[in-house]
C-alpha cells in the first residue's frame, strides 16, 4: 500500500474553557491512503469533527492539540500558521455540512470556488473565471459559465453542495475532509451528491475522510470505518467486516438501534442512557455504563481498554474492548411485526379530505396577489385511534403545512378537516381552542420549542393552566405522573430546559403534548434532531404511549426508515399532493408510484455487502418551486416513466388494482414495469 496521505498518532485535544481544560480527543490514531474513503462515525460529542479539524490545524486557539499529525509529508502539529495555510489551500479540500451557510452570501459562487487558488498564487486572476466554470462543469452543473457569476441564493441546496465540492476540488487536493456532507440534504439529492463525490474521487485519486452519524451513508460509501465514542476510536476496520461482525459492543448496539428500511416495525433495541459529555466521562471504559458486556465485570469500570486487533489478522479489525472476543453478532433485523392492532375497526379520529392550503404571493408595492404557492394541494387522509399514519416527503412537499392546518395554525384554502366527525375548518377561536385540547403537537426542534426561562414543570403544566384544568387534573401529582410516563424523574421539576440533553428535551415536549390527555398527537419530525441511540428510545416511548393511551398519531417525517419503524399507514407527498398511500408493508415492499420507488431506492441501507448489487434509481434534478409547479403530473420532469400523457394530464388519485394502495400515476406499477428507461434532462431551476 502506498504511503498514507494523512497519518495521525496519539492525537489529544483539550478545550480550555472558563474552568479546567476539557479533554475532547483522547488518543486517536488513524491513517488514510490515496484513493480510499475512511468514514468516521459517532454520535454528537464523540469528537469526530474535532479530529478532522485538529488534523488540519483549523481548531480555534482555545484548543490545545498534542500528538503527531503528518499531512501530505508535512508535520501539522506545531507547524507555523503560514505553512498550515499553504497546506490547506493545496493538500486538503473541505466539504462542510450545510451548503447554505458554508458559502458567503454576498460573493459570486465562481469567485468563491477559485479565490483560494488565486490567493496561493496557483491560478492567475485572469484565468479564474474560466477555471471556475470548468470546475462547476465537472460537478455536473448546467450552464457553468452563467452559474459561476451567480450568488449562492440563486442555487438550490443540492447545487450549492455541488459548488462546495467543486471548491474543495479546486486545488486538486490529495485529501478531502467531508463533515456530514449530506446531512442537510434531501434523500434523493443526497444520493446524487454521494454519487458525485465518489466519481470525482475515482477521477482524482484523492483520499476522503467522511464524517457522519448515518450508518447507512457509511455502508454506502466507506472503504474503512472508524467508530468514535467519548473522544476515542473504539473500533476500526474494513466496512464489510465491521458491519458483518462488529467487535465492539457499541458498534453492535448502534446497528441494532437503527430503524431500517428493510425490516418491519416492532420494538427497537435502543442503547440505554445518554452519550457521555466530554469532561464528564465515566471512569474506565467510557462506554461501560451503557454496555451489555460490562454487567458484573469490574475491569470495565476500572481500566480503559486499548485499541487492539481482534479476529483474523487479515481482516484488519481492531476494537477497544476488554472482552471484544465475546461481543455477539448483531441480532438479525426483526422481521416479525406485532399483530396489526384492531385500529382499522376503530372510528376515524381525524379525516382530511381534499385539503388545500395556498399562500398568496403578493407584489411589493401595491400588495396585489400575483399568484399562489400551493403548499398543500389536495391531501386526503384518515387517522384512527391507536393508529400511526405517516406523511413522508422531501423538504417543501407540504407535510408540515398539512399538520399545521389540522391544528388550525394556518388558514385552510379548501377541503375539509374533521375531528371526531366534526368539521374544524373555520371554527372560531374559542371553539378551536376546545378542539385543540384533544389534539396536540410535538415539534421537531427540542432545543428551541421549550421556553428557556420556564422551569420544566411549568413547561409541562402550561397547557393545563391555559385550559384551566390544572387543579381538576390533579396538579403537581399529575405532572409528576406525566414525567414518569415519559421516563423522566419528577426530581427534575425545578430545572430549566438548558440543563437537559436533546433526548430529554424531546421527552419534555412529549409530556407537554400529553398533559391534556389528547386523542390525536401530531408529531412533526420528533426524532430528526436526535442521535441514533436516543432516536430509538423516543420511538419506543411513542409506541408504548400509543398502546397505553390509545392515541392516534399523525407522524410527519422525511426519514423513510424511521417512518417504516413506527407507521401503520404511510402517505407519500410530492409538491403538495399525496402521490401514494397504503399500509406500511405494502408501501415499502410493493411501491407502485415511481416517486416512492426512487425515494426508497435512494435511502442508504446499512448493509455494505449489497451496495453494488442494488438497482438504484437516482433521480435527476430537485423539487420544483411550488409557486410554479410543472403542468400535468407535477413529478414528470424527474420521472423515469414520464410520457407525453404525463406532461399533459394530471393523474387522478385512485386505488391501484391488486394492492391496498391508492396511487396518483398514469403508469403506476411495481419497479421495472412500464419504464420507458429514458431519463429526462435535469430540470433547470
Amino acid at each position, binding site marked *: 500500500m502506498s504511503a498514507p496521505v494523512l497519518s495521525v498518532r496519539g492525537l489529544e485535544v483539550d478545550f480550555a474553557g472558563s474552568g479546567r481544560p476539557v479533554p475532547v480527543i483522547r488518543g486517536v490514531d488513524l491513517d488514510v491512503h490515496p484513493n480510499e474513503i475512511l468514514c468516521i462515525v459517532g454520535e454528537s460529542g464523540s469528537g469526530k469533527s474535532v479530529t478532522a479539524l485538529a488534523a*488540519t490545524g*483549523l481548531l480555534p486557539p482555545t484548543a490545545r492539540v498534542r500528538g503527531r499529525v503528518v499531512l501530505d509529508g508535512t508535520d501539522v502539529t506545531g507547524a507555523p500558521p503560514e505553512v498550515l*495555510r*499553504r*497546506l*490547506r*489551500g*493545496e493538500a*486538503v*479540500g*473541505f466539504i*462542510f455540512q*450545510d451548503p447554505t*451557510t*458554508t*458559502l*458567503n*452570501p*454576498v*460573493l459570486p459562487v465562481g469567485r*468563491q470556488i477559485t*479565490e*483560494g487558488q488565486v*490567493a*496561493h498564487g496557483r491560478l492567475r486572476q485572469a484565468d479564474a473565471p474560466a477555471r471556475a466554470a470548468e470546475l462547476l462543469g465537472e460537478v455536473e452543473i448546467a450552464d457553468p459559465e452563467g452559474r459561476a457569476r451567480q*450568488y449562492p*441564493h440563486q442555487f438550490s441546496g443540492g447545487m450549492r453542495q455541488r459548488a*462546495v465540492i467543486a*471548491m474543495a476540488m479546486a486545488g486538486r487536493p490529495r485529501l478531502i475532509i467531508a463533515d456530514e456532507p449530506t446531512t442537510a440534504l434531501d434523500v434523493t439529492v443526497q444520493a446524487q451528491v454521494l454519487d458525485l463525490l465518489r466519481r470525482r474521487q475515482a477521477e482524482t485519486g484523492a483520499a476522503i475522510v467522511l464524517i457522519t452519524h448515518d450508518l447507512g451513508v457509511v455502508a454506502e460509501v466507506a472503504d474503512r470505518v472508524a467508530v468514535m465514542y467519548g473522544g476515542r476510536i473504539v473500533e476500526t476496520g474494513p466496512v464489510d467486516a465491521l458491519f458483518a461482525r462488529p467487535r465492539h459492543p457499541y458498534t453492535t448496539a448502534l446497528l441494532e438501534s437503527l430503524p431500517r428500511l428493510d425490516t418491519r416495525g416492532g420494538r427497537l433495541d435502543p442503547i440505554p442512557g445518554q452519550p457521555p459529555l466530554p469532561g464528564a466521562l465515566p471512569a474506565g471504559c467510557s462506554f461501560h455504563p451503557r454496555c451489555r458486556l460490562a454487567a458484573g465485570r469490574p475491569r470495565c469500570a476500572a481500566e480503559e481498554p486499548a485499541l487492539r486487533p481482534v479476529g483474523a489478522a487479515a481482516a484488519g479489525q481492531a476494537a477497544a474492548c476488554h472482552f471484544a472476543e465475546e461481543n455477539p453478532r448483531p441480532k438479525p433485523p426483526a422481521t416479525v411485526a406485532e399483530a396489526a392492532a384492531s385500529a382499522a375497526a376503530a372510528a376515524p379520529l381525524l379525516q382530511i379530505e381534499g385539503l388545500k392550503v395556498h399562500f398568496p404571493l403578493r407584489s*411589493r*408595492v401595491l400588495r396585489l396577489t400575483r399568484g399562489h404557492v400551493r403548499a398543500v394541494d389536495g391531501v386526503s387522509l384518515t387517522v384512527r385511534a391507536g393508529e400511526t399514519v405517516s406523511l413522508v416527503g422531501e423538504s417543501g412537499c407540504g407535510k408540515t403545512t398539512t399538520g399545521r392546518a389540522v391544528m388550525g395554525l394556518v388558514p385552510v384554502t379548501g377541503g375539509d378537516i374533521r375531528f371526531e366527525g366534526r368539521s374544524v375548518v373555520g371554527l372560531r377561536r374559542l371553539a378551536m381552542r376546545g378542539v385543540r385540547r384533544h389534539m396536540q403537537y410535538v415539534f421537531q426542534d427540542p432545543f428551541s420549542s421549550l421556553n428557556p426561562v420556564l422551569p420544566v414543570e411549568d413547561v409541562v403544566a402550561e397547557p393545563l393552566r391555559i385550559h384551566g384544568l390544572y387543579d381538576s387534573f390533579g396538579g403537581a401529582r399529575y405532572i409528576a405522573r406525566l414525567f414518569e410516563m415519559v421516563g423522566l424523574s419528577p426530581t427534575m421539576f425545578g430545572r430549566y430546559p438548558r440543563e437537559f440533553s436533546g433526548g430529554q428535551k424531546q421527552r419534555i415536549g412529549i409530556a407537554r403534548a400529553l398533559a391534556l390527555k389528547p386523542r390525536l398527537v401530531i408529531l412533526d419530525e420528533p426524532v430528526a434532531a436526535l442521535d441514533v441511540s436516543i432516536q430509538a428510545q423516543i420511538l419506543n416511548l411513542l409506541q408504548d404511549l400509543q398502546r397505553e393511551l390509545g392515541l392516534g398519531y399523525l407522524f410527519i417525517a422525511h426519514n423513510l426508515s424511521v417512518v417504516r419503524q413506527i407507521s401503520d399507514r404511510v402517505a407519500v407527498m410530492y409538491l403538495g399532493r399525496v402521490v401514494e398511500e397504503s399500509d406500511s408493508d405494502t408501501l415499502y415492499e410493493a411501491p407502485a408510484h415511481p416517486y416512492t420507488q426512487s425515494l426508497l431506492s435512494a435511502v442508504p441501507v446499512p448493509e455494505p455487502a449489497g451496495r453494488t448489487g442494488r438497482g438504484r434509481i437516482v433521480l435527476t434534478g430537485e423539487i420544483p418551486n411550488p409557486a410554479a409547479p410543472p403542468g400535468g403530473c407535477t413529478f414528470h420532469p424527474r420521472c423515469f416513466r414520464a410520457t407525453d400523457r404525463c406532461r399533459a394530464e394530471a393523474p387522478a388519485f385512485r386505488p391501484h388494482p391488486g394492492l391496498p394502495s391508492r396511487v396518483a400515476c398514469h403508469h403506476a406499477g411495481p419497479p421495472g414495469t412500464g419504464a420507458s428507461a429514458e431519463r429526462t434532462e435535469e430540470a433547470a431551476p
Partner: protein
Amino acid sequence: MIGYILRRLVQLVPVLLLASVAIWGMVYAVPGGPVGVIVGENASVEQIAAVRAQLGLDRPIHVQYLDWLLRAVQGDFGASIHSRRPVMELIEQRLPASFQLGLAATVVSLAVGVPVAIISAMYPGSWIDRSLSAWNALALGVPTFWLGILLILFFAVQLRWLPAISTHVPFWENPFGALRNLALPAVTLGLYVSGIFARFLRASIVSELGSDYVRTARAKGLPERQILLGHVMRNALLPFITIVGLSLANFIGGAVVTEAVFTYPGIARLLINAISQRDYPLIQGCIVVILVVYVFVNLVVDILYAYADPRIEYR
C-alpha cells in the same frame, strides 16, 4: 435598478402626505395658534376676526390644508411671523450649513468608530478590546454640551487655534476656513456617535467571524487579512449602512445642543428659535424640510443596501 428607485419614490408619496397632515394639523391643534401670536393678548374680537380672515383661517379646514399643501409642494411655506421674511429663504440659508456639519460629523464618527470596531473584533476579550470598549463607553457617556464647552475652552480660549463661535464657511469656497469652523462641532457630534458605531460594528463583525463561510475561507487557506476585508466586512457592513444613514439624517436635522453650544447657524437651531417664538409657518417649514431630508437619506440607504446585498432584488 432605475425602475426600483422610481418605485421607491412612488412609495414615499403616501408617507410624506400623511406626515404633512400631521405637521399641518399639529400646529393648528395647539391652543392660541398663530392668531394669538400676531394680535397679542389684549386684542378685540374684531381684530382677531380680521387677522383670521387675513390668514385665511375662516375657510373650511380641508381648503386650508390643500391650499397650504399646494404652496408647500412649491416650496412656499409663507412668511415668518417674526422676521417677515419668506420661510424658505430662511431655511435655504441654514440648510447647507447643516449638511456640511452632518457630513463632517459622519466622517469623524466613521474615522474613529470603524477602526476601533475592527481592532476590537479581531482580538475579542483581549486587553486592547477591553480598553477600546472603555473608550466607547466614555465617548457615549460624556454629554455633548459639556464636551463642546471643554473643547472650546481648550482649543479656542487657551490655545486660540480655532474659533469659539463657528460660522458657516462653504467648503468649496474656502476649505481651510470651513475645516477650522467645523472641527470642534464635528468632533463633538462625531465622537459621541463613534461610540455607537464602534459597538454596533464590533458586534456585527464578531458574529460574522463565527459564521460557517469564515471557516470555509480559512479551510481554503486564505490569509486572515483577505478573510476580514474580502468576506467578513462585506457582510458586517450591510446592517451598518442603515445606522450610518440614520445618524447622518439625525446630524443634519437634530444637532440642537451642538449647534447651540457653538452658535452654529444650522437648521436645528432655526427650528428651536421658531418654536420658542411660536413662529408657526417657520416651524412647519423646518419640520417638513427635516422630514424630507430624513426620508431622502433613508431612500439612499435602501438603494445602497440593495446594491451591496445581492439577495435583495430590484423588484
